[in-house]
């Protein structure tokens, strides 16, 4: 990656029993997910990048600008770093109304060129809330205001620390569409910390997986998700992401046909304009395998695939990585089925995909 378009991060931080030790690059575009279990050091990493923690040794270079370097003793204080930060809780200022809150950062970072205020306000759907006080907002509304506030200080990039973690499922569903829109429309890069694989599959382009203070995987989201050797990505939630293009819609059955590298796939509902790019999330548990193409099956999507590798998973199941066209997906099958079908690397099979979640790319 070109040095002008990456954030180079190197930190070593010791806090009691916990040690953070990372050295990697993040792309300065799209949404980069930082994924890991609780206690993996995701929040510590984010706080270091923001300058809220000062580790003993560390280096942070943003698009060629050195923000922090213990060797040359460079240190930019938090307020001198052009970042936006969305915390787990909204942390709105109770003495200011919503407008006062979102203008707080705006007034202090004017030098970056004024961002399009109205665009961001409408992007997050907070037009109606501007005159209200933070204590008159629901949890979801408050978090949307917090996101707008972070975006409006015209940051080089935005750090989001599990912005949905403190919300219940209904509130999450309320905010996720706004994050989708942000992903599609806003140009500002986002570093998104999460321990929720759903959010990662839905939003992220790049993925960093952390475990006990270290980076264990790092790359674009498709290739990291199909790595079956990482316990955190295996298990019940194992999924893969592929990109497709909407090509037609069957009005009778309300199905949309999507084209991807390995063939066509039918998904229910939501006709997309022809030619639009979509992101498909396929859970490993929704993919089954057969040696021959099943005739008279209720499963619509049956695509030819090649077994790339097989990895035993917990209990009776195993994960099988398949190559479909230039894409890869993961299937969860029982170990018995693997034995009975005598599946081996390089075998040609048919992947039966029962359901697919579709998102904007």
């Amino acid at each position: 990656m070109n040095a002008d378009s990456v954030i180079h991060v190197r930190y070593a931080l010791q806090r009691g029993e916990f040690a953070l030790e990372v050295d990697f690059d993040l792309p300065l575009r799209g949404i980069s997910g930082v994924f890991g279990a609780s206690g993996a050091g995701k929040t510590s990493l984010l706080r270091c990048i923001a300058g809220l923690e000062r580790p003993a040794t560390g280096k942070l270079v943003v698009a060629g600008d050195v923000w922090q370097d213990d060797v040359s003793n460079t240190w930019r204080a938090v307020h001198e770093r052009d970042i936006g930060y969305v915390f787990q809780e909204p942390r709105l200022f109770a003495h200011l109304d919503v407008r006062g809150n979102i203008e707080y950062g705006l007034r202090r970072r004017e030098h970056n060129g004024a961002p399009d205020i109205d665009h961001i306000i409408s992007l997050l759907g907070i037009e109606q809330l501007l005159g209200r006080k933070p204590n008159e907002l629901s949890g979801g509304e408050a978090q949307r205001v917090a996101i707008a506030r972070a975006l409006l200080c015209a940051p080089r990039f935005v750090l989001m620390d599990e912005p949905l973690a403190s919300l219940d499922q209904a509130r999450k569903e309320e905010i996720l569409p706004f994050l989708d829109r942000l992903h599609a429309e806003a140009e500002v890069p986002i570093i998104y910390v999460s321990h929720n694989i759903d959010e990662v599959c839905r939003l992220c382009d790049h993925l960093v997986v952390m475990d006990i203070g270290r980076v264990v995987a790092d790359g674009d989201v498709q290739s990291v998700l199909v790595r079956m050797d990482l316990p955190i990505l295996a298990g019940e939630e194992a999924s893969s992401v592929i990109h497709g293009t909407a090509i037609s819609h069957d009005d009778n059955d309300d199905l949309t046909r999507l084209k991807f590298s390995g063939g066509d796939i039918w998904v229910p509902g939501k006709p997309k304009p022809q030619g639009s790019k979509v992101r498909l999330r396929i859970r490993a548990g929704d993919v089954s395998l057969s040696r021959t193409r099943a005739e008279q099956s209720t499963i619509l999507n049956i695509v030819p695939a090649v077994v790339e590798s097989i990895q035993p998973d917990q209990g009776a199941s195993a994960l099988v990585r398949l190559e479909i066209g230039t894409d890869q997906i993961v299937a969860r099958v029982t170990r018995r089925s693997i034995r009975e079908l005598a599946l081996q690397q390089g075998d040609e099979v048919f992947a039966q995909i029962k359901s697919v979640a579709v998102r904007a790319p």
Partner: protein
Amino acid sequence: MNANTLFGPLWLSVQLAAITTIVLMIVATPIAWWLARTASRWKPVVQTTVALPIVLPPTVMGFYLLILLGPGGAIGSWWVELTGNALTFSFLGLVIASCLYSLPFAVQPLVVAFESLGQRNLEAAWTLGASRMDAFFSVALPLSVRGYLSAVVLSFAHTLGEFGVVLMVGGNIPGETRVISIAIYDQVNHSTIWLHISCRHCYLSWPSSRCSQCSISTDGGKRDECRQRHSRSLCVATRRVRT
């Protein structure tokens, strides 16, 4: 007691309390901020020192201050050298003494306010481009308004009501150090009120100068007679009669 003899001291007291409160808000803010946020091992030491005026008898504290601020004391002699005036028995001396005396009443509510404010709002302000100072004035201060309100009320009231310290350090100079508490003490000390409030029966008959039980005039030296009439120790405190 009449209005004129009390108005001057009352006004002086209000001035003293107001100036003390303003000075205290400026002085107590950094102390409280530090106390609320530090993890230093000196914290308990500073905390105890600040709280000392609460437990120290006012006259004792006034005595120490008299020594410290007097022309022979460490601060007093320096001040004399600098300005030619003594700090003791002056209004400025009173302000200094009052500030020290009311310091815990200003610091404590602010510490509570700053502690409940926590780190979260400040971190949010920093990430939005506010320097530490900016974040203090634009976020911490407005969110601690209640703490400041109680600090102001407590400091003002406590200064208004102080007696021992002002008497020791300021004395009783009309227009300079004669504040309302001193003036009231002075009035009571030099009047016949003592007589009337010291005997239950005499008190009932006040303001006439006769005991309601025995109709003996309690002015002058007839306390023994009155006392003998109804109980052993009711009319004991006529010691300061001055008519």
